[in-house]
């Protein structure tokens, strides 16, 4: 098999999560008890045998750098290859590139140095537990220039609306990209492309003063390119708003969803943290919830996601909520439809209630 190299391009992802992305980029948003959004794509790449991955970041990337570090937790701390976190740093005075083309232009070495002939490119907002092998095989079999991974959805949800839709012929060749809300063939923003072509399109885009590699280089060049569509039919989610963030956390509490995302194919990797097992005390009452290591639970937890090291005191109640790392919920507090960012301290007797449509969000390190 010809080698595949990876690229996670988050240049054009917006900070869609209000308070949760004041101090971090969307890709670094904590999700599902112990992960960050970027873990899913990165794990899929690593578990598909990709052993060099670059990350194009553009701002608020401290949390991404801290999280990915040397890449050791993804087995990407390698002598050759491994992880390349590439923040915007460029000093070429003759550089006329714009948008994510600046990343491609200034990091050409990453592509040149690798012997891989194909690149798998992804954002961070599409979550699934999948291997790219089959898509890559199809890509090679059909000798496609580009293979787009698409998700045929049953019900169109709000989080699908910003995604491109793909029209294709009976052989899977893409005939058009659109924003048609009726089209249920949703593009996942994951695609495989020939490396030589990628570099050629980068030059072309820069010469025409373009600023978006996929939109200008691939979508607008459709007539000149052979683009395949590869359907992925497993459990998927798109996280691109507070609403979709919250709803998908809650939806993971359905046993079937949880199993499809976490126990299928492979385990999703993340930065490990050496937390002890969860300690349940005498009066704890927990149901339909996921709890990451390091929590201490004395109160009641229902239909909720508890990240690592959360403390729930006696007679405290947490319902339909997402409680991030090291939050402390004191005695008698009542939380319903709430998202607490890391290190929030809810003092005793407080009542925080949001709605399902608009959960109450508390930013990092608040005392309530």
């Amino acid at each position, binding site marked *: 098999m010809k080698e595949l190299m990876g690229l996670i391009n988050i240049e054009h992802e917006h900070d869609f999560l209000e308070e949760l992305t004041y101090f971090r980029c969307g890709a670094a948003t904590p999700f599902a008890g112990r992960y960050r959004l970027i873990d899913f794509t990165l794990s899929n790449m690593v578990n598909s045998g990709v052993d060099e991955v670059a990350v194009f970041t553009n701002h608020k990337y401290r949390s991404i750098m801290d999280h990915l570090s040397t890449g050791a937790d993804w087995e990407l701390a390698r002598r050759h290859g491994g992880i390349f976190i590439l923040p915007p740093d460029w000093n070429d005075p003759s550089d006329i590139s714009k948008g994510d083309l600046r990343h491609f232009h200034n990091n050409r070495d990453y592509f040149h140095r690798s012997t891989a002939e194909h690149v798998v490119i992804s954002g961070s907002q599409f979550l699934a537990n999948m291997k790219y092998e089959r898509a890559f095989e199809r890509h090679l079999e059909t000798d496609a220039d580009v293979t787009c991974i698409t998700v045929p959805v049953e019900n169109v949800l709000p989080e699908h609306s910003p995604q491109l839709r793909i029209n294709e012929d009976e052989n899977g060749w893409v005939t058009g990209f659109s924003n048609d809300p009726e089209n249920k063939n949703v593009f996942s923003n994951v695609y495989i492309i020939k490396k030589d072509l990628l570099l050629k399109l980068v030059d072309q885009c820069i010469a025409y003063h373009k600023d978006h590699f996929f939109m200008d280089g691939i979508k607008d060049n459709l007539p000149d390119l052979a683009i395949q569509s590869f359907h992925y039919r497993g459990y998927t989610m798109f996280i691109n708003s507070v609403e979709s963030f919250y709803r998908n956390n809650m939806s993971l509490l359905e046993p079937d969803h949880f199993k499809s995302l976490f126990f299928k194919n492979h385990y999703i990797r993340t930065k490990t943290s050496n937390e*002890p097992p969860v*300690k349940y*005390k005498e009066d*704890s009452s*927990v*149901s*339909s919830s996921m*709890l990451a290591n390091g929590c*201490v639970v004395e109160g009641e937890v229902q239909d909720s996601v508890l990240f690592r090291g959360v403390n729930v005191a006696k007679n405290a109640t947490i319902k339909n909520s997402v409680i991030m790392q090291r939050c402390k919920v004191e005695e008698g507090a009542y939380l319903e439809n709430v998202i607490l960012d890391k290190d929030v301290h809810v003092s005793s007797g407080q009542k925080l209630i949001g709605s399902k449509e608009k959960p109450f969000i508390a930013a990092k390190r608040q005392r309530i």
Partner: protein
Amino acid sequence: MKKEIVGMLLAGGEGKRLGLLTKHLAKPAVHFGGKYRIIDFTLSNCSNSKIHTVGVLTQYSPLELNRHIGIGKPWDMDRQRDGLATLSPYTAQDGGSWYKGTADAISQNIHYIDQYDPEYILVISGDHIYQMDYRKMLEQHKETGSEATISVMEVPWDEASRFGILNTRENLEIYEFDEKPANPKNNLASMGIYIFTWASLRNYLIEDMKKEDSSHDFGKDIIPAMLNDDHRMFAYRFDGYWKDVGTVKSYWEANMDLLEEDLSLSLNNREWRTYSHDSHYPPHYVDQDGKVNNSLVTSGSWISGSVNHSVLFERVDIGKGSVVEDSILHPSVSVGSDCTIKRAIIMEETVIPDETVINGEQYDEPVVINQQNIADFNGVKGGR
């Protein structure tokens, strides 16, 4: 490369009295406390005490132990010039032999210790559960100008005859060592934690190697020989939690101790963390029928039954309608539905069929179950 102190961690013991638990692995590698192995506690103590030069002496069934400790990464001991070294028995030009005793294990590795030209050497054993700052013990060792300092804890007088007792003067200077005395004169028991002044111990080890009748043991040979020569030796008092997990019963008790509210040893202590390997399992999940109280539950587990006063390791499944009480379930144990498990230790990857009843309450020791013996238990449907 000079180091003030080098740690020597004895991890070669078989742990016979742990029965099935140590059939295929060394005692220090036995699972403990929901996600740890027994040796993690002493390795973490070294790491937290800033002792990063540690030789781990292995001998009995070392495969899993070696894989677990590796190059010492979880304890920050993966270092360029010192760090963790696994010291197994070896052959050399003059032949070679197994480690014949705790002292012999160190004697055979004098060349390892000499590389670091240390002033002191810490000798500890990989089968005790406790959290202790060895720096404080070293401080006392220096202050008293001892040749040897032995850590002790007070035990109830009526139990003193089960321990190695150190008879001390008022200032804690040791004048006599009594191994399991019938009529104890003191209630300070040795915890098997020693700090020696290396230059002095080195001579005793070399002498001891020459003695054919010696059992090459610290407690039986080295300490008595040093006392005999009137060396300055002091006891170091430790009043935290300490447990030797030597038997199935004490292993079970020590796990259950972790569920106690006011235990001085805490896995959640951020100032004194216990380090181990981390896995990539997702958070554990308790479904709508699940119920967990007074227990430890670790990542990757799936709880549909009821769990009370138990310790669950990673990736344990508890089926619907099952009741687990006073038990320890090792990694990847799968309990079917409508089972009852009481006072049992279920070993790694055991699959327990639906409607199995395992009741360890009728025995003196908790029952140890693995895939081979599960069918032998009364109450197992289809069993005998």
